[in-house]
């Protein structure tokens, strides 16, 4: 178990940018190395763990929901929170005001609510901080 902590700030909403995929890969890789991770989700990124996301069928190809096996970001975030529920620890914090604006309060279990002051504290207490802004 490492004594290091990496903080990420994310801003992109799900299903729009490869940034989200890369961010989740970084979180996964860090947890596998035993590194604690903080995620501060800001603006559209608060929708990444939104619980009401639903996988869909593909009427063009005629495939069912099960056949399509469409990945949702809420599932990825929930899996990462499961991996990071102890040591190493993943703290996923959604910006509260961003959540309220978007009606995105129904998040997967384990997601916390906070504000920019929490991001500052996370950054101050971390080994390093990476901000992944929108383009």
């Amino acid at each position: 178990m490492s004594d290091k902590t990496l903080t990420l700030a994310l801003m992109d909403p799900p299903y729009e940018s490869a940034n989200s995929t890369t961010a989740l890969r970084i979180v996964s890789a860090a947890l596998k190395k035993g590194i604690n991770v903080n995620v501060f989700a800001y603006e559209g990124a608060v929708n990444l763990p939104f619980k009401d996301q639903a996988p869909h069928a593909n009427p063009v190809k005629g495939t069912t929901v099960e056949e399509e096996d469409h990945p949702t970001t809420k599932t990825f975030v929930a899996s990462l929170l499961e991996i990071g529920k102890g040591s190493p620890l993943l703290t996923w914090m959604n910006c509260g005001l961003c959540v309220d604006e978007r009606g995105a309060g129904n998040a997967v279990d384990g997601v916390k609510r906070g504000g920019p002051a929490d991001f500052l504290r996370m950054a101050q207490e971390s080994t390093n901080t990476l901000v992944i802004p929108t383009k």
Partner: protein
Amino acid sequence: MASRKEYYNMANYVFIESRDPFESRDTGFVADTATALKRGDNEVTVFLVQNGVLACRNNAAASRLPQMAKAGITLLADDFSVSERGIQPAEMTPGVRRSSIEALVDLLVRENTKAIWH
């Protein structure tokens, strides 16, 4: 006696370049800044990810990667992004090494490291 690096408090810089240089002309900012920091005797790495890896094809004539390699900057390309875009090892610009997201994490948690996403 403190080394020159310690005396001047030089740092490790990790630039994460996610943008395609043929779509985003401001990728020149990363090349210019990374080169200037390297000239200042800092350790500088540019990690290419997503469409940023499109610059590492040999035939990418407008790429700034050869200049950065010549300046002594460490150039790494995310293997996942490289594979997704069908870039073969033989096609890659000399000086760019295939790397991984795990290696990026190792770079990010080094002491005295500043990380810049572009």
